């Protein structure tokens, strides 16, 4: 089972990304994510957290999160479900804890809204996904580890996590 990723958001904006449906116990929302292999944690966009009516300080405190040169207190929220679309047009649901960050001023709140939902390497590790990417060809996808059958079909210039 593979989850395709887009390799760009426009010219010279080569991010691994795609659309996702996020669900919390209080509702669901359309959203997008960026897969960031430089982030060890999965972080929910501030506006997505608001749309899902997630209380910002109900979970356990995490490490201090640095985003865009500023630091924020993070809180864990356990009950988020990510729904992705597989390449064979099936819904793939993954429940995964995320970090929500708490702004301390309206200005910080506005700044945090600019940062997308980030899927980090914790998601790949705990949910057992392998990332394949060939940025030059514009091919990228996540594949469940136990379902990977043939390593030799992997293009030469790929990233594996």
């Amino acid at each position, binding site marked *: 089972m593979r989850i395709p990723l*887009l390799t*760009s*958001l*426009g*010219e*010279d*904006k080569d991010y691994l*990304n*795609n*659309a*996702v*449906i996020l669900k919390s116990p209080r*509702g*669901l*929302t*359309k*959203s*997008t994510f*960026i897969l*960031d292999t*430089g*982030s060890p944690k999965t972080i929910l966009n501030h*506006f997505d957290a608001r*749309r899902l009516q997630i209380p910002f300080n109900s979970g356990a405190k995490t490490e201090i999160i640095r*985003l*865009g040169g500023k630091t924020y207190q993070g809180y864990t929220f356990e009950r988020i479900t990510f*729904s*992705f*679309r597989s390449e064979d*047009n*099936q*819904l793939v649901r993954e429940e995964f804890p995320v970090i929500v960050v708490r702004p301390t001023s309206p200005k910080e709140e*506005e700044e945090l*809204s*600019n*940062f*997308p939902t*980030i899927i980090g390497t914790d998601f790949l590790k705990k949910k057992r996904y392998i990332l394949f990417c060939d940025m030059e060809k514009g091919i990228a996808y996540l594949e469940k580890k136990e379902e990977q059958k043939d390593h030799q079909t992997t293009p030469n210039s790929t990233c594996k996590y």
Partner: protein
Amino acid sequence: MDELQLLTGSIADLNWFKENSASIGEKYEGEFIAIDNKKILESAPKIDILIRKLEKKGININLVLIKYVNPQGEIIIL
């Protein structure tokens, strides 16, 4: 509408955003935009203003794709 339909619509909208990023960037740089069915429904420089505009139109903010359009020459390094 079920989740798969919602997601399929979002993916199409995100692809549309990507394909039209140059023209969207020229018109909406530095703004938040709400996209549905390959159309920009509303835009605003601040997310709260965008929410108010959408709610005033009776649009469910959870069922539209919200994107921030980076100012020209600016990229986000996470």
